[in-house]
């Protein structure tokens, strides 16, 4: 790797290059006092050498199992994935097309027209992540980032109550045996709610989550509802917007992998003119559509709500009928429900 690719400041780079150090190997045998002859402070020289030695640890370590820092074999990844549980969405059919539910360590994007149920699904996931481990859930906490102000605490309470009762029904337990920590109030106490009023706050929060998640290690899902809202109004420079969104999605992906949690992003729709007619498509542009691992689109089919798995690394596209009831997201109850493979 060349000196020009090192993450050091421009003036230091210029000084190194003008003194003739162009490759990392040329730096490997230099000591800090020698570098400080280049009009660089001693402490800064130490930092530069540290950065360059990190970058070439590849060559220093020999006989190590890793090819390079941070790599993992596919077999190890498979065993890890199989050990992770999925977060149920409340509807068995929807879970089945998602391969068991929302995956941890991945970023899932959910989009749809207004009123289709994105916020409802978000609240349902924030509740379902808390189902205790013994009952098939993850027993984790949730972070709900609200950019539109559409979150209603009373609805979360309703969904929590219904979800707890259904879990117990599925496991055949009696109502009397529900312990204190499984009351709806304690479920609500485990959801951390942030209200974001501008895109600056949104970026600041995503940066801050790194620190927050170290302090709250049991958070297993981060829901952003919706990631689009502030980016649609205030940006004049669309190229800058794309770069900022790219940085944001990179950070979210890193958070998902580092803390082994799932990130769920809600997106709005917009119209796009392709092939001679207007179509609905998710907002934020084509570059953004590459940044999430999975994509689910919620849409109306006649009078029914459907979910379509649009993008996934290993599941095939399929659509399924689901419904939004007083209890939250559930399977469709009509006779003609079916999973349609595309």
């Amino acid at each position, binding site marked *: 790797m060349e000196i020009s690719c090192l993450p050091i400041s421009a003036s230091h780079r210029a000084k190194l290059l003008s003194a003739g150090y162009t490759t990392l190997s040329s730096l490997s045998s230099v000591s800090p006092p020698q570098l400080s002859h280049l009009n660089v402070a001693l402490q800064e020289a130490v930092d530069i050498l540290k950065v360059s030695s990190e970058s070439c640890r590849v060559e220093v370590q020999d006989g190590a199992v890793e090819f390079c820092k941070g790599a993992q074999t596919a077999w190890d990844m498979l065993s890890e994935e199989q050990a992770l549980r999925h977060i149920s969405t409340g509807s068995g059919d929807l879970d089945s097309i998602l391969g068991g539910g929302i995956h941890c360590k991945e970023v899932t994007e959910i989009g749809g027209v*207004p009123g289709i149920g994105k916020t409802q699904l978000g609240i349902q996931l924030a509740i379902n992540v808390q189902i205790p481990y013994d009952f098939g859930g993850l027993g984790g906490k949730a972070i709900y980032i609200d950019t539109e102000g559409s979150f209603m605490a009373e609805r979360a309470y309703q969904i929590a109550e219904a979800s707890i009762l259904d879990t117990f029904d599925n496991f055949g337990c009696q109502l009397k045996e529900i312990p204190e920590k499984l009351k709806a109030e304690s479920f609500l106490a485990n959801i951390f709610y942030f209200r974001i009023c501008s895109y600056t706050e949104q970026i600041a929060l995503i940066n801050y989550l790194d620190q927050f998640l170290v302090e709250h290690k049991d958070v297993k899902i981060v829901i952003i509802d919706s990631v689009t809202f502030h980016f649609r109004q205030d940006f004049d420079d669309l190229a800058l917007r794309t770069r900022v969104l790219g940085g944001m999605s990179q950070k979210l992906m890193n958070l998902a992998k580092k803390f082994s949690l799932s990130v769920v992003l809600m997106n709005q729709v917009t119209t796009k003119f392709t092939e001679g007619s207007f179509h*609905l498509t998710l907002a934020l542009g084509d570059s953004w559509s590459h940044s999430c691992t999975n994509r689910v689109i919620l849409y109306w089919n006649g009078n029914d709500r459907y979910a379509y798995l649009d993008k996934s690394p290993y599941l095939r596209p399929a659509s399924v009928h689901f419904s939004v009831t007083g209890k939250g997201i559930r399977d469709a109850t009509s006779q003609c429900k079916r999973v349609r493979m595309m």
Partner: protein
Amino acid sequence: MANKLISQMGLPLPIANVFAARSIITAKDALSIPESDLMALLDLGRDQVASAVARISEITCPPYQTVLSLMEDRRTSGCHGGRLPTLLKGLDEALGGGIPPGLLTELVGPSGIGKTQFCLKLSLIAALPTCYGGLNGRVIYIDTESKFSSRRIIEIGENSFPQIFQTEGMAQEMAGRIVVLRPASLSEFTQSLEKIKLSLIQREVNLLIIDSMAGLISGNPRENESCTRGSRQQPLGWTLSFLKSVAEFSRIPIVVTNQVRGQSTEAFHYPFEGLGGNDNVTSERLESHLVAALGIQWAHAVTIRLVLEAHSGQRYIKVAKSPYSPPLAFPFIVDSSGIVPLSDDGIELTGQEISTIRFQVQPI
């Protein structure tokens, strides 16, 4: 939060000076630039930029609350939790007590259906003393189409709440609590919003009504003429985020009315849905030929959408979009005492019927 000054964030002095030297004054400036660009701009190392950005983010980030404390806060803030009852019993139940505070509620429907009448009644209810079920506060009514009629307000008051309005001086007191603004253009509207933002909390204003939003945005042909599609969205986008921040900041209900327009090139489908033959599309177009104005961005931004429509000789108010309520339609009529419900039980509508807008005029 976004406008916090970097100089006050406690960054190490050399770093703070570098930021200031490059005109990066507020948190918004710093966070809008990707980190790699910041490194090049400020001539700082990776670690220094990372720690500076982490510090700025930590301070700019809003505080969190657990949902449990959120619910408890709402319960303790006034009767009905600060909601505005509409006095249509079924609708109030569906909305959990009334129109909720801190969110945008939209009333959309064809002209002549009763949106302004509904707004007039809501302003009266907000002005009423709490013992009669009101919010006992002032109302700001922004009237963009000159539809506000004070005579009609008094008439509604006399017929719906006779015991109050017949008391000496009460009519004057109630009507005196409703402040009417009549901006003539979008820029005047935004100016007046800025001015009232501060007084919203100080002067005990309990309700903000904007009648109508569509009149402001679409009624500016000269401004829109040479705009590209992107910048036509700008006035709407800016107004939207401003309204939402006002709602959050003041925690009062905000009711906005919207018009309808005919469908022209309305997109219905995603590419993956395939084309089930063009027949489906055209038959849908023939049946429901009215849609809400202001587009899909607006539709995403409002939290509660109440659709007013008329068909089969009956007028209905439908809860088309709400995070809390099932999709119900309530029949109503408009008479001398404003909007009167014909039944307390809503009719549950499934699917997209809840959002369609029909207007079939009754034969005289």
